[in-house]
C-alpha cells in the first residue's frame, strides 16, 4: 500500500532524510519513532505530497506521489503536526469545507460529517468556532478532517500530542479500530504510544533508519529485556549481589534503588528460573519480584545516539534522548512487569 525507496531530502546543506526505505501493508499501524528533528515530519510531508523529495520513490495506494500528488492525496488522510485548522470557522463549517474541497457531494458531505463526529466525539462542539476549542477538541477536529473522505491511508503526525490521558486512550482505541482495513502511520516521540497502538516500529535518527521491527523486538534490544528485579528489604544487598552474579547466564547485577537488585541476563537468555531457584535455596522471600520486558527509553537512547562518523551539532539530535518523555504522562511506560507495585519511576524521562 505504501512503498518508499531511497528517499532523500535536503534543507540547504542539512540532509534531513537520508536514504529512507520502507513498506507498509494494509492492517499495519506503523509507528514512526525518533527524537525531535530526526526527519519524521519531513518524511510524512513527502509521503503526503506536500514536499518534493530530492531523490527517491514514493508510492501510495499504487500512485506515484511525486508524479501525481493530487491523485495520491485522494487516498490519504493527513493530520499535520499541531493539527492546524481555520480558527475563525465553526467545526461544522470547517469539515464541510474540507468535504467540498475534496469534491464530495452535499449529501455525502453531511453523512461523512455525521460519521466522523461520532467517531471522534465532536457533536457537542460542531457549532463552535475552532478558535474557542480546547487543545483536545482541536486535535479531534484534525482527526475528523483526516477521516472525512474515508481514506485508505492515514498519516497522523503526533496525533496524541497535548491530549490528556483519557483522550490519548480514546484516540489510540480509535486508531486501533481504523487499522483493520487501513494503513496507518503515526509519528510520535512517546514510547508508550508505540507499544499501545503500533504493530511495527520504524526508529529514525538523523534521517536514517536505525531500527525496523515489531515493538516487542524493539524491547528485546534492551539490556533489561527479561531482567528480574527483586525487592529485598532487610538484606545485605552487596552480598546477595555478589552471589547472584555467579548464576549461569547472568550478565550483571545492578542496584538501581535502595534494597532493589536487578539481574540482567545475557542477550537472549532467560534468568528467572535460576533466580527463583536461588531465592528458594537461600530461603529468601522477596517483598516483590518482577520480570521486565525491556526499557524502551534505554533502547531509544542507544539507537538514536549519533553514529561516530556523523556527529552533528544540531539541537535535538545529540544523544537522541531530548524528545523522550516530553509528552509521556505515565512514567511507567517502559515497564511491562509482573508486579507494577513500586515501579521504578525514574527511568521514564531522560
Amino acid at each position, binding site marked *: 500500500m505504501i512503498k518508499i525507496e531511497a528517499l532523500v531530502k535536503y534543507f540547504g546543506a542539512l540532509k534531513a532524510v537520508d536514504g529512507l526505505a520502507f513498506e507498509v501493508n494494509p492492517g499495519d499501524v506503523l509507528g514512526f519513532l525518533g527524537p525531535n528533528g530526526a526527519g519524521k515530519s519531513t518524511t510524512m510531508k513527502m509521503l503526503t505530497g*506536500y514536499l518534493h523529495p530530492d531523490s527517491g520513490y514514493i508510492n501510495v495506494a499504487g500512485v506515484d506521489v511525486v508524479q501525481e500528488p*493530487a*491523485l495520491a492525496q485522494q487516498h490519504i488522510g493527513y493530520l499535520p503536526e499541531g493539527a492546524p485548522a481555520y480558527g475563525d470557522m465553526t467545526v461544522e463549517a470547517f469539515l464541510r469545507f*474540507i468535504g467540498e474541497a*475534496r*469534491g464530495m457531494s452535499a449529501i455525502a458531505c453531511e453523512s461523512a460529517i455525521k460519521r466522523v463526529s461520532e467517531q471522534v466525539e465532536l457533536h457537542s462542539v460542531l457549532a463552535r468556532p475552532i478558535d474557542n476549542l480546547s487543545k483536545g477538541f482541536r486535535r479531534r477536529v484534525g482527526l475528523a478532517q483526516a477521516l472525512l473522505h474515508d481514506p485508505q491511508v492515514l498519516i497522523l503526525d503526533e496525533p496524541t500530542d497535548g491530549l490528556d490521558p483519557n483522550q490519548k486512550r480514546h484516540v489510540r482505541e480509535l486508531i486501533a479500530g481504523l487499522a483493520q482495513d487501513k494503513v496507518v502511520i503515526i509519528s510520535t516521540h512517546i514510547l508508550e504510544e508505540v507499544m499501545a497502538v503500533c504493530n511495527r516500529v520504524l526508529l529514525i535518527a538523523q534521517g536514517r533508519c536505525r531500527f525496523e521491527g515489531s515493538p516487542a523486538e524493539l524491547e528485546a534490544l534492551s539490556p533489561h529485556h527479561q531482567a528480574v528485579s527483586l525487592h529485598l528489604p532487610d538484606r545485605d544487598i552487596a552480598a546477595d549481589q555478589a552471589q547472584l552474579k555467579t548464576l549461569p547466564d547472568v550478565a550483571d547485577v545492578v542496584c538501581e534503588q535502595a534494597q532493589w537488585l536487578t539481574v540482567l541476563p545475557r542477550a537472549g537468555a532467560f534468568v528467572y528460573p535460576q533466580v527463583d531457584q536461588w531465592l528458594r535455596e537461600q530461603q529468601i522471600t522477596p517483598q516483590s519480584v518482577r520480570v521486565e520486558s525491556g526499557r524502551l527509553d534505554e533502547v531509544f537512547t542507544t539507537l538514536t545516539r549519533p553514529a561516530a562518523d556523523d556527529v552533528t551539532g544540531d539541537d535535538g539530535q545529540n544523544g537522541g534522548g531530548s524528545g523522550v518523555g516530553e509528552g509521556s504522562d505515565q512514567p511507567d511506560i517502559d515497564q511491562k512487569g509482573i508486579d507494577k507495585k513500586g515501579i521504578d519511576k525514574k527511568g521514564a524521562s531522560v
Partner: protein
Amino acid sequence: MTSTRGFHGLRALYKRELSGYFNTPLALVFMIIFVALSGALTFYLGNFYDRRQADLLPFFQFHPWLYLFLLPALAMRLWAEERRSGTLELLMTLGIPSYQLVLGKFLAAWTFAGLALVLTFPLWVTVNYLGDPDNAAIVTSYLGSWLMAGAYLAISQCLSVLTRSQVIAFILAVAVCFVLTLSGFPMVLDAFQSWAPGALVDAVASLSLMTHFEGLSRGVITFSDVWFFAVTMAVWLLANRCLLDMKKA
C-alpha cells in the same frame, strides 16, 4: 471516492475565503474605511462641488492611491497567515491543484473588493441628484477601477507567499505597488533614465498602473488598458503559483 477533475477545490476555497472575510471584523472595518476615505477624498481633495461638473472623476482619480494602501492590507494575510498557522500544509494536501488554490483566493478577494466598490453607490446617486452625468461613462469607470483593483490584489497576493509575517507582506506589497503605480512618472523613471537604454525606460513607463487607469477613470475604455490589467493579473497570479510550489518548504 473523490475526483481530481473539476473545480470543486476552487469553489470550496472561494466560498470559504469570501465567508472568511465576513466571519471576522475585517469586512466591516475594510468596507467602512474604504467608503469613508473614498468619499472624503472626493469631496475635500477632489473639490467635487467646486468643479461644478456632474461626473465622478474626482472620485475615481484617487482610486490608485486608495488601492495602494488598502488592497495590500486586504491581501497580506492570504498566504502569510496560512503559512504561519500551518494550514497551508492542510490546504495543499487536499488534492486541489495549486492553480485552483491561487485562483480561489484571488477571486474571493477580488469579489470582496468589488463589493466595497459597490458600496460607494451613494456617490453615484448624489451626482445624479445634482446633475445629469454620463452614466455609461461612470459604469465604465467602475469596471475599470475594479479591474485595477484586481491588479493590485494579484500583486499583493503573490508577495504574501514570500513570508510568514503579514507585516512584511504588507510592506513589500505597498512598495512594489507604489513603484508600479508611479512607473510612468519621473519619480520612478529618473532612476532608470541615466543608465538604462531607452527601450527599457519605455517598458518601465508602460507598466504604470496609473497611466493605464487614466483613460478608464474618465470612462474611456480602450483595449490596450483592459489588456494591460488582465495581463498584469495573469502574470502575478502565475508567479504566485510558481512561488507557492517553491516556498512551501
